[in-house]
């Protein structure tokens, strides 16, 4: 029977072309939607890499006019002592503006043995940053005061960058360059630790590559954020007190306190909105395609009433007619999906958008499953209607 149906479909290839194109187009759109969903879901499953609850961010503009670096350092060290003296402050750390969940990004390159890796987030942090953020150290150690005297500038890298540069090898102790040209190797930096990648752009974004640089004596000129880890019970009253302390101390600065929990919510929303829009558009498209398929199958069945009557006359049961029509639709879907999969498989093969192949593979399987279910559901009712065709009537109509 399969051979018979293949013959029938092949001989009607011109009539089936539009239906197959519709299925192919739906597959490709679904593939795009599923790729995005799987990508977001994969990122969502991965650990955040730090503890954002009970961490506040103090934004300030560095308005203190210091005559020299020492007095600037003194100014902020005093502030540190004042803040640490507050009852609900557990830890504080000055850092560069690109704190987690902010829109600020500072990227550069690193290269190892002449192989550059671009798009590496660069963070300038203090020794206390790890404790403030509860970052998870996977290899080596965090910065300490002894690093001031290091021959090569010490850096800590994220787990993703470690995997990209060294695969399964140990990273600690290796020297990397700080640019994308081999010549930059002379400014070699020494990896002293590897931390779990931090999803700085929210739950749905990848952790990405990151390099952490230790602050030096002149860093206060460029820093603009203070990460404050507070006790779990820190109240709004305490926040007001913290603000007052900061505002009184940094009289010429605009001080603003944000909570990482709300910043996370905002940045997630920023990611989710386009995804929701895409899902709505994709949903409408699927409904359109389903209605189209349903209509075309219905039309085909009405056009084939004579054939259905004949099949009933020569020995087909109502159920076998219904099954035949559903199987025909599924064969058409299979042919479209073979073509669609050929196009879709190019994405992992050509490494388009630099996503892991597993994301595309899962998306391909999800799209295939979805199309089969859609085609099955759309052909179920017309198939049932075909089974109910009265052979005597259908044969008489012809």
């Amino acid at each position, binding site marked *: 029977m399969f051979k*018979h149906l293949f013959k029938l479909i092949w001989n009607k290839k011109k009539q089936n072309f539009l239906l197959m194109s519709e299925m192919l187009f739906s597959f490709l759109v679904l593939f795009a939607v599923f790729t995005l969903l799987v990508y977001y879901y994969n990122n969502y499953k991965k650990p955040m890499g730090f503890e954002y609850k009970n961490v506040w961010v103090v934004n300030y503009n560095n308005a203190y006019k210091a005559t020299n670096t020492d007095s600037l350092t003194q100014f902020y060290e005093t502030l540190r002592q004042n803040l640490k003296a507050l009852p609900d402050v557990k830890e504080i750390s000055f850092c560069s503006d690109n704190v987690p969940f902010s829109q600020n990004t500072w990227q550069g390159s690193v290269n190892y043995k002449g192989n550059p890796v671009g798009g590496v987030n660069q963070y300038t942090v203090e020794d206390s940053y790890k404790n403030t953020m509860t970052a998870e150290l996977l290899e080596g150690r965090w910065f300490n005061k002894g690093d001031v005297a290091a021959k090569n500038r010490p850096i800590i890298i994220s787990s993703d960058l470690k995997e990209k540069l060294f695969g399964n090898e140990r990273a600690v102790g290796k020297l990397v360059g700080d640019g994308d040209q081999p010549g930059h190797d002379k400014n070699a930096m020494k990896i002293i630790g590897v931390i779990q990648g931090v999803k700085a752009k929210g739950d749905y974004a990848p952790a990405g590559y990151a390099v952490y640089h230790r602050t030096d004596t002149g860093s206060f000129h460029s820093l603009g954020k203070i990460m404050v880890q507070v006790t779990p019970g820190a109240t709004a009253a305490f926040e007001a007190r913290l603000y007052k302390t900061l505002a009184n101390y940094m009289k010429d600065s605009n001080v603003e306190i944000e909570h990482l929990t709300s910043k996370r919510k905002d940045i997630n929303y920023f990611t989710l909105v386009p995804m929701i829009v895409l899902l709505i558009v994709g949903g409408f498209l699927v409904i359109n395609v389903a209605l189209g398929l349903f209509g075309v199958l219905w039309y085909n069945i009405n056009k084939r009433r004579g054939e259905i009557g*004949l099949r009933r006359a*020569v*020995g087909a049961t109502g*159920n076998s007619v219904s099954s035949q029509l559903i199987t025909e639709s599924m064969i058409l879907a299979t042919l479209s999906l073979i073509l669609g999969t050929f196009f879709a498989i190019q994405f992992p093969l050509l490494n388009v958008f630099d996503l892991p192949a597993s994301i595309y593979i899962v998306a391909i399987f999800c799209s295939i499953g979805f199309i089969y279910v859609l085609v099955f559901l759309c052909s179920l009712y017309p198939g049932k209607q075909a089974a109910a065709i009265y052979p*005597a009537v259908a044969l008489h109509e*012809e």
Partner: protein
Amino acid sequence: MISLQNIEKVYRTNTVETLALNSISLDIAKGEFLSIMGPSGCGKSTLLNIMGLLDQPSKGAIKIADQKTDHLSDKQLANFRNQKLGFIFQSYHLINDLQVLDNVELPLLYRSGSAKERRKLATEALEKVGLANRIKHFPNQLSGGQKQRVAIARAIVGRPEIILADEPTGNLDSAMGNEIMDILMQLNQKDGTTIVMVTHDENMAHKTHRLVRLFDGSQVQ
């Protein structure tokens, strides 16, 4: 071979009730070639459809090959049609998207059997109707007479005991009509196939063993 007892067929709509067949009783012997005649709308095709188990009578009983058919399920009816009956229609009812050989094989698809066996039986049936050289053609590449011969081949491929032909020469000129009639007569005489044929053509009807006339749903001869 076929026994009809007090067959009645009523078509009902919300407002109208039409009596298509009124108390038809008919016994057709094995190997008989019977023709049914009557003006348009008198119920000839309805009677043939009821004999072919394509339609159910409103009243009465049908027995085919000593088997009562009243309480057969859809599956049993389909199997019965497939094994015992062959159909020939005025408008051929060939599937235009399938080659001649595939059209003839169609009844065999609903039986068990290998593809090779199906091909052999279909080729034999086409040889019988003189179309062995047209197996790769599509129906729209054939003349009306050739199409009807393909339809006959399809009807006989499963070696049914009964052939039901609904105006098989109705769409053909007299020469082609005679050709088709000759094939049917040969099937009846050589193979002993029981044939029931609906026709408008007196000449064709007189070639058969018995003629039944219908008028307004009733048997008048």
